[in-house]
């Protein structure tokens, strides 16, 4: 294990940044945290988490796929991939780190999504343990330990030091190259972890129990009469989807400027009326079906296809940001009433 004094954090960031692009969570102009490309003067946020998740760095909201040039009957295909350079992302929380496993299952299964794959290969993840989780946090429900997150490197922080533990070969390689880090004892973080655990045990949403969803009750859940009530005030916006670290649906669209067509993909939301719209035009006619799709995907479809792993990591972003405060916790609890 290594450590560096908190007052020297900038020299650590400078040292990492000298090797690879470095992203850290920093406050944006509205005072909310955002993963930001580090340059001298970029300061680590004091906020618990970013509004947009770390997913953005591996699966950006908009990304060019390919360009077409059309002249008379000829179509020329031009490579237009956004280049992906090696980068490091620092300060990823345990929840977001787990979300990469969920995204990997989707994008790295056959057929492999090479756009995502190149970013995963290029991106080194440094996590930061949570000292002060929010009331909306429930990562523990998914077996995530916010006091000891995964990643290539795990960090802990107290008032005096940032502690650093390399977990993977890539992490060790980076660690070796950083002379600003000094050796310290593994037990240095015991007290931090213990304090964090004390708080994590007290979180109000810890009692959320999803075991009933693991049994194959697909049709029962799908046909539950509660969906109407749950979705009645849903605005049909994409806030929950776009702040979610595990939502991975996208749309492929063409931007035609008359001379060239740029084919790009962008995040899509099952809450939108044109989501997966096909020629027949009747995908999910009302907000009830759209709303149901989002939660069925996370609570039933995804776990059914992936050994019981849920498509949620308990980061709590949707709890904080939904304009009408409807969210996966409320949905889960309501549906469970019908399961008794």
């Amino acid at each position, binding site marked *: 294990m290594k450590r560096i004094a908190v007052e020297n954090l900038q020299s650590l960031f400078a040292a990492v940044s000298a090797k690879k692009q470095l992203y850290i969570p920093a406050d944006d*102009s509205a005072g909310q945290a955002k993963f930001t490309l580090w340059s001298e003067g970029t300061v680590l946020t004091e906020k618990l988490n970013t509004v947009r998740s770390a997913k953005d760095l591996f699966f950006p909201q908009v990304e060019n796929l390919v360009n077409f040039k059309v002249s008379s009957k000829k179509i020329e295909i031009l490579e237009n991939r956004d280049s992906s350079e090696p980068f490091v992302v620092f300060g990823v929380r345990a929840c977001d780190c787990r979300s990469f496993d969920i995204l990997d299952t989707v994008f790295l299964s056959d057929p492999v999504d090479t756009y995502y794959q190149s970013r995963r290969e290029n991106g080194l993840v440094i996590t930061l343990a949570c000292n002060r989780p929010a*009331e909306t946090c429930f990562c523990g429900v998914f077996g995530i330990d916010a006091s000891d997150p995964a990643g290539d490197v795990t960090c802990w922080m107290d008032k005096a030091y940032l502690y650093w533990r390399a977990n993977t070969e890539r992490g060790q390689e980076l660690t070796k190259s950083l002379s600003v880090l000094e050796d310290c004892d593994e037990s240095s973080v015991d007290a931090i972890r213990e304090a964090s655990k004390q*708080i994590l045990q007290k*979180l*109000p949403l810890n009692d959320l129990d999803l075991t009933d969803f693991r049994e194959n009750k697909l049709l029962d859940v799908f046909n539950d009469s509660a969906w109407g009530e749950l979705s009645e005030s849903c605005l049909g916006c*994409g806030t929950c989807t*776009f702040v979610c670290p595990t939502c991975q649906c996208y749309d492929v669209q063409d931007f035609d400027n008359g001379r060239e067509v740029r084919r790009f993909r962008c995040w899509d939301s099952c809450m939108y009326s044109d989501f997966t719209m096909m020629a027949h035009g009747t995908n999910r006619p009302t907000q009830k079906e759209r709303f149901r799709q989002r939660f069925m995907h996370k609570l039933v479809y995804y776990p059914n296809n992936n050994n019981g792993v849920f498509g949620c990591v308990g980061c709590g972003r949707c709890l904080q940001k939904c304009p009408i405060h409807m969210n996966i916790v409320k949905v889960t609890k309501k549906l469970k009433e019908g399961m008794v």
Partner: protein
Amino acid sequence: MQKRLKEKALELLSNCTVTRVLGWKTGEFFYDLTPAVFETAEEVEKEFVYSGFSGANLSKYLIQESRKQGKVAVFLKPCDSYSFQQLLKEHRILRENVYVVGISCNGLLDMEKIRAQGCEGVTAVTEDGDTLTVDTLYGTTKLSRNDCLLERCAVCKSKKIVAFDELIGEQGEELESNRFDRVAELEAMTPEERFAFWREELSRCIRCNACRNVCPACSCEKCVFDNEKSGVRNKAIADSFEENLFHIIRAFHVAGRCTDCGECSRVCPQNIPLHLLNRKFIKDINEFYGVYQAGADMDTKSPLTDFTLDDCEPSIVHERGGVQG
């Protein structure tokens, strides 16, 4: 207030004045209230909540609710009543199917502002006059209530309930508001500074469309941005300029109809001060055509859809646009 609203809801249901009540429903925490339709006394007893966190403007839901079987009761705060009346004016709500209970208001709270003042893991907020006591997982803090108000409440334009069948609490007055101060600051910037300001603010947009979907003035059956044949998109596009234009187009579209209810800024997950675009239009309309408040009454014609000989000359509007090209 909570008690009086609850009693009223129960009364209206039990004497069959209405079959449904539109209000706010309890959440997991004390602050995460959801707009909801209550159909039985039991539901009202168990789940109806009115508190400092009942910020959501319920008027837009009436477009759908007033078209369902039976009458629906709704609780409207003063600023919500302007949205309601503007929707009536646009023939979007069937008035005969709605029973409006106007409720007086002393400003509502913004959880984001409470969090922004360093309160993490908030478990309870108690109001005591001008002071909020905030309990968190990490201790208790006291905050000034004024520092925790929703933006629209901090610059409240009116305590007057402009449309109602009955009132709970006192009827209020229109207020002297400093809501245009920030707009004036933006007007005082150079065009370059202002352009940079908006590019920065709008660069945070994630195209979630929450501002549009919550907006009572955005009540088109199908938004042009949701029409895949329109050539403009409701999702993010690989051209940041179109992203920015979305908000400007929307502001133009609701100009003259926007009541400044502030819902767009309340729901924006990225804290973009969208209300400033709308307020710029309102301020300009006031200056060009005389003071006009959308939703204030049923009769006054909106200056942008009306022509009078006193209308301001286009050249003056042009001049006000600042340095051209």
